[in-house]
């Protein structure tokens, strides 16, 4: 008996993970359905869904970037003040004072870009595989909202470093919002907490970026993934059609 097996047989460990260590299919099933997080999966899956070309793992990659972004985002929040000019100074602190601060910020930034990109590719994959067909119509709509939330998250985060890139990038974007008939000006004022991108805008974008949008995103991701299972598992390329002249 190895040390690992001994540990997994102790009464304390068994109080947390109830099933035994015997490599039986019963225990492999229990691993899935006795675990809050894994039980979004069925105990058995269709073998062909494991093929790389079935989904290209694009939804999974998007979820992976989300997890990385939450982890690095929480760490970055420890070093960040949403005020002018401290926000910019905090970027310099990350660069010169905080251990691995540059790595942390880089990882958050590139993960954010990858998330926008992979979410878009995921949408295209689902479209060309026609995986939005019944019973998956509603999950497609949830996905479109998730893509929108991803863009908004990325956009609100863009302002937070408070450098020239951030300030003018957000100014250009919010000037577009102004063009909406009737509500444009009001929406812009509501978003920025004023008529120009200012300290109020920084605070609003910070709260949106760190609380409102991530909570909405995580809730909708839960719905999205739960619906994937309820609607019959991941849907790969359609295999029912003859497509020759």
């Amino acid at each position, binding site marked *: 008996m190895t040390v690992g097996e001994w540990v997994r047989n102790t009464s304390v460990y068994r109080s947390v993970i109830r099933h035994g260590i015997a490599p039986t299919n019963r225990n*492999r*099933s229990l*691993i*899935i359905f006795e675990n809050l997080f*894994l039980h979004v*999966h*069925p*105990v*058995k*899956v*269709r*073998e*062909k869904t*494991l093929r790389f070309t079935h989904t290209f793992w694009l939804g*999974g*990659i998007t979820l*992976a970037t989300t*997890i*990385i972004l939450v982890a690095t985002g929480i760490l970055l929040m420890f070093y960040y003040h949403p005020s002018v*000019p401290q926000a910019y100074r905090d970027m310099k602190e990350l*660069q010169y004072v905080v251990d691995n601060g*540059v*790595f942390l910020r*880089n*990882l958050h*930034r*590139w993960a954010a*870009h990858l998330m*926008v990109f992979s979410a878009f590719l995921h*949408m295209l994959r689902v*479209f*060309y595989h*026609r995986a939005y*067909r*019944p019973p998956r119509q509603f999950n*497609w709509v949830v996905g*479109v909202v998730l893509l929108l939330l991803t863009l908004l998250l*990325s956009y609100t985060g863009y302002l937070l470093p*408070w*450098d*020239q*890139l*951030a*300030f*003018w*990038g957000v*100014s*250009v*974007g919010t000037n*577009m*919002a102004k*063009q*909406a*008939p009737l509500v*444009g000006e009001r929406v812009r004022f509501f978003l920025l907490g004023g008529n*120009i991108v200012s300290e109020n805008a920084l605070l609003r974008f910070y709260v949106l970026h760190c609380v409102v949008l991530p909570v909405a995103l995580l809730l909708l991701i839960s719905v999205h993934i739960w619906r994937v299972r309820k609607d019959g598992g991941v849907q790969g390329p359609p295999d029912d*059609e003859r*497509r*020759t*002249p």
Partner: protein
Amino acid sequence: MTTPIEIIDSEDPLANPWRVALVRPDGRPAVHETDERYVMTFPHLILREIIMFQIVVIALSLAAILFNAPLESIANPVETPNPAKAPWYFLGLQELLHYFPPVVAGVVLPGLVGICLVVIPYWRVNLEGAPLWATPSRWKAPTIAASVILLSILFVAFRCWPIVIPTVIIGVAMFAASWARAGSRWQWLWGVTLPEWIMTWFVVIAVVLTVIGTFFRGPGWMWVWPWMDAPRG
């Protein structure tokens, strides 16, 4: 001793129920039987998920080590950079602003894209999956030709060549698909459905506009070649 079962012979339907339906052996509800192979989620799927997550973490960590996130000087509301660019995923929209009135580029077109995306699964043509030319109809070719020509004229009126050119190319490709023969190397083109043509048209335009906005626009939103030194504004 148990009472023997009493057999009632009666015309009363409560005492002697009538048969209202007969399920014949060949008329049972069809159960779609497949010979699909199933595997245990643990370890087959879970281990793949862990490996995928690790690959993403490693790839992003390498990117984070090799490339630094941009950081310019502190925000200055009185010093406008030229050009002032939005993040890359909005540069397609910003490029549209160059051709269309702000209401069209900033509100109408993005709004249309959003609505079109949401309604996709509720529209019958998107559910059928029949190749464009699989069902011959005398109105199909003229309607498609008219749509392509009208869209092209509309965008020519705005001098929006990054949309006109993909529109014409996709339109020509749609008709080329109708001549693709079985067994030829263009056979796959014949199998493309109408929704796929439209989505491809949208994606090509989105990519073209984003690439132009990202790499080919300099001070005053003038055209620059990215491999030449642009005058910094």
